């Protein structure tokens, strides 16, 4: 983004990069109808997963990110499952799914443990005791090997959707 002033730089992160193993995890996975515990590896067993970490539901970046992903609909032309994750509760996820009219399941991780495992924790200034993942996108194959990774290094920041599209196309 070019706003003509500096925005917040985020510190270095030791997140998984291309060729490395993405940490597996189990969290409630929410659809428009229900939620149930599911692991990333279970999903990946059915095909590559585009895991999208986004700010909490209701924030404008969450809305923008899902509008863009829904617009691009990678899953319609490629063998990829688009899946989100935020710290919002399953109830909030159901509302987001309804409001955005999106067909993507969302992991619910209120305690932000997955972001810790990926080293992408973003402590939110002015919200005491609340942290969430940095905006981030990981494309993993069936063995959870990272094929593409993008992690915000400033706040706020948005994925490079064209780069994601290229990564998805080269699966």
């Amino acid at each position: 983004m070019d706003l003509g002033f500096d925005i917040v730089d985020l510190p270095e992160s030791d997140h998984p990069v291309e060729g490395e193993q993405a940490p597996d995890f189990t969290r409630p996975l929410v659809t428009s109808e229900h939620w149930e515990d599911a692991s990333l590896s279970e999903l990946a067993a059915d095909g590559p997963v585009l895991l999208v970490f986004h700010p909490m539901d209701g924030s404008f970046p969450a809305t923008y990110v899902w509008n863009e992903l829904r617009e691009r609909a990678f899953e319609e032309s490629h063998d990829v499952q688009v899946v989100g994750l935020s710290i919002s509760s399953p109830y909030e996820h159901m509302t987001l799914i309804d409001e955005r009219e999106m067909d993507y399941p969302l992991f619910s991780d209120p305690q932000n443990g997955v972001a810790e495992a990926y080293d992408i924790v973003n402590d939110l200034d002015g919200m005491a005791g609340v942290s969430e993942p940095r905006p981030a996108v990981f494309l993993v194959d069936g063995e959870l090997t990272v094929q593409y990774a993008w992690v915000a290094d400033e706040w706020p920041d948005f994925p490079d959707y064209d780069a994601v599209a290229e990564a998805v196309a080269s699966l």
Partner: protein
Amino acid sequence: MSEATDEAAPITLYRLQACPFCERVVRKLDEYGLDYHSRFVEPMHSDRNVVKRVSGSRTVPAIVDEQTGVTMSESANIVTYLEKTYRSED
């Protein structure tokens, strides 16, 4: 991971968070040490089409037992079913 999150478990329990009738079924499942998989649904009755598709009714709890092919609603019925089917295996 607890029994309640076992994807491969033969019993799926459709439940609503904090619903006492659902907890009644959970107690019985735990009593018999049965592996089950929890699927949480919406508080709004009219939004529970997933349960209706499975059991014919939007009420929870509902269970699907793949071992016996039984699908059932109403906690009293489910508890009786579990007792009849699994008590002897204790």
